[in-house]
């Protein structure tokens, strides 16, 4: 019997690595980002300065943690519109508790726990009641924003008195690199690894790809969905605490519209809104792309009246090119 059609002969190791790189889902996006950066470094002498790069990374680092949670949730087939409000609520709860005299670290833990609870609450409505993620998270988005207002009376909470070692999370640096960026990288690398390699996270893919088939493979799909929903909110909690440490304040109106940004990043990076596919690395590249475009427009002093038009067009073009490259590669 013709030892069936294994048409791809094992190439030499080097070739293999290059081929593998070219076959990766993320390569197109990397090329597009590189092209943009090269163009920008000619257009503006400031683009490649350390300060600018730092500013660009700082602009999405904390949101990037939320992107991680959203990507995992999208892969499992869910979506979360409440990320912006929940992040704000995390700041507000921790800030409020701190002002009540609670140790900031304890306050932060309580706040993250509360956000995790919110995620579990949503997970309950999705998996037990049977509602769609979209509508549940929309309602929670409104509720959490309301809770922010209620805690603060609508006014930002100033937290200047936060101890220095707590502020260090958000404002400190190790060598030249801000701690925020280091935390961000750790979260991204850890979850990227886990999502690619661990058996636990593999179940997220099975569930999102075909929930019924996953159930028929003995996977407790509801539990998986419950957990990804909870994880996403928990990461919002973490992000909120880092923001609080960074800004030294808690803002009830923080994160308005964040959900679209975060979902867009994940989708640009290849996550499917129907579940079953996506990578953390890709999603972060999506966030990088969005951030580089915004920063470039600001740096080039493009008229505000043109910025949105250009931004939207670049987004559309980038996604189209990426899509085209992916199609060709296949």
């Amino acid at each position, binding site marked *: *019997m*013709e030892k*069936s*059609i*294994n*048409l*791809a002969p094992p190439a030499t190791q080097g070739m293999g690595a290059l081929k593998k790189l070219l076959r990766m889902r993320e390569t197109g996006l990397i090329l597009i980002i590189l092209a943009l950066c090269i163009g920008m470094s000619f257009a503006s002498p400031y683009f490649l300065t350390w300060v600018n790069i730092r500013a660009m990374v700082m602009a999405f680092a904390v949101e990037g943690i939320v992107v991680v949670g959203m990507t995992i949730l999208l892969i499992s087939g869910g979506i979360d519109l409440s990320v912006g409000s929940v992040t704000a609520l995390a700041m507000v709860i921790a800030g409020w508790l701190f002002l009540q005299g609670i140790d900031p670290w304890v306050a932060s833990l309580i706040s993250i726990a509360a956000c995790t609870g919110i995620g579990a609450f949503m997970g309950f409505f999705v998996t037990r009641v049977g509602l769609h993620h979209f509508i549940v998270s929309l309602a929670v988005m409104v509720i959490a924003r309301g809770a922010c207002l209620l805690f603060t009376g609508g006014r930002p909470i100033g937290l200047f008195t936060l101890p220095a070692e707590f502020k260090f999370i958000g404002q400190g640096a190790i060598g030249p690199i801000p701690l925020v960026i280091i935390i961000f990288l750790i979260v991204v690398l850890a979850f990227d690894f886990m999502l690619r*390699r*661990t*058996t*636990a996270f*593999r*179940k997220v*893919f*099975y569930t999102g*790809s*075909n929930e*019924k*088939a*996953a*159930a*028929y*493979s*003995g*996977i*407790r799909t509801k539990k998986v969905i419950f957990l990804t929903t909870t994880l996403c909110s928990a990461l919002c909690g973490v992000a909120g605490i880092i923001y609080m440490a960074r800004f030294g304040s808690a803002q009830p109106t923080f994160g308005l519209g964040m959900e679209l940004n975060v979902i867009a990043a994940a989708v640009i990076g290849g996550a499917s809104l129907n579940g*079953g*596919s996506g990578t953390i690395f890709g999603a972060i590249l999506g966030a990088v792309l969005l951030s580089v475009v915004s920063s470039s427009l600001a740096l080039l002093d493009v008229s505000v009246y043109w910025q949105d038009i250009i931004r939207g067009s670049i987004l559309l073009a980038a996604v189209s090119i990426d899509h085209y490259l992916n199609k060709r590669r*296949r």
Partner: protein
Amino acid sequence: MQDDVILNISDLHKSFGAVRALRGVNFELRRGEIHALAGENGAGKSTLMNIIDGILQPDSGTICWNGTPVSIASPTEAQKLGIGLVHQEIALCPDVSVAENIFMSATNISRRLLMDYRALEDRARSILGQLADIDSAMLVRDLPISHQQLVEIAKALTLDCKVLILDEPTAALTEREAQILFSIMRRLADQGISIIYISHRMVEIFDNCDRVTVFRDGQYITTQTVADIAPSDVVNAMVGRVVDTLYPDKMRPQDCASDRTPPILDVRNLSEAQRFRDISFQLKRGEVLGLAGLIGAGRSEIVKGICQLEGDVSGDISLNGTPLSIRTYGDSIRAGMVYLSEDRKGDGVFLDMSIAENISALDLGLVGNRVGTIDAARETDLAETLAAKLNIKYGRLSDPVSSLSGGNQQKVAIAKMLSVDPKLIFLDEPTRGVDVGAKAEIHRILRDLARSGVGIVVISSELPELIGVCDRVLVVREGQISGEVSGEDMTEENIMHLASVLDAADAQLQSA
């Protein structure tokens, strides 16, 4: 003679990336004939049909319709020519009623502005009437897979077509429905409609078709009149060698366990509110047990109930003598009891995920390290071993399952079950869409497993398969076990007799 040919295909090529699905095939279809197309899984049958229906475009080659070359760019154009296709994979709109599904094409080309639902349902009812008892107002998503298959067929019958293609329509049907289909096919052929019939069941081909064309590995092998050829010749042409299509030997005395060892599976008084009641049976060591019944009898439900996949069942189950207290299907898998689903597309495989990822889905522990990470090499090894064992035809193990032919997808689903070395396997239509050679291979594997002490329960709509493979067959009728046959009594007549509803009425009359 020549003007009798409605469709003529010559030297057609089609590749998917590196996979050369069709390599210069020829095919000739005459007016009013029933023409069988045979070939192993992945031979390219469905690909050719998709090309004829305009879903795929050939890389090269000519298609002549009534003697004139045509290019068929879309299903719409195929429809205009008069080509109708029943797909191997069910493609219905789940959120729409049965009636609307049946008349979807008609609605599409209709010049009428408004829907006439009543007429639609009436007509749907009259068409379905000849096939089965299906409520035409139901949503397709609420139908079991076998009924969906019938809706697919009904849909094709409404087309006003000159060429009707049926791609493995009987894979999920029982004998009775299949016979109804064949009589409809013959009637259509008499009206001058040409039918291309794809099936892996030789009996069906030889009982109902006029000619047969054989493909092998994307190549055209031969076309013969059925009267001039024997089934074994077709099989040999398909596989390219002589295949032993006989069923494996039955249980040997030395396979039997002594009376003291407990049965592998002991089910007592299993009931579920709506679907079945009072089911009791045993599966002895070394035996292959069959479950027979008409469509909708509840065979799948019983087995899913045992595995805790569906329904709220009551009753006692013990596995190898130990009473089972499992609450989820996950527990069932851990206990060594697995279920192969009849709906491979719906819940059998992950179409968008790779072959390797599919095969390891049941127990990731097999491919994981102690720390819970996946060992890619082990995953590949596992997939390679099972793919070779089941002779799966694939390009790369990292290709998505959706790129496989139907029969090969089925083999992936089976590989998934075998990956965990189960103690007991329930197989629901295990050889659905699988070719003769591979089928024999699967039967042999099942028998070997049974001999090594693994419990095997087979549900099949194909009676010859049940009779050939099983040592004992339980017949299910309307959620109850209506009888058991084994040995000499295991004949199609006996099974049908126990399965059919008419006798239930008789029995009731007698007992009353």
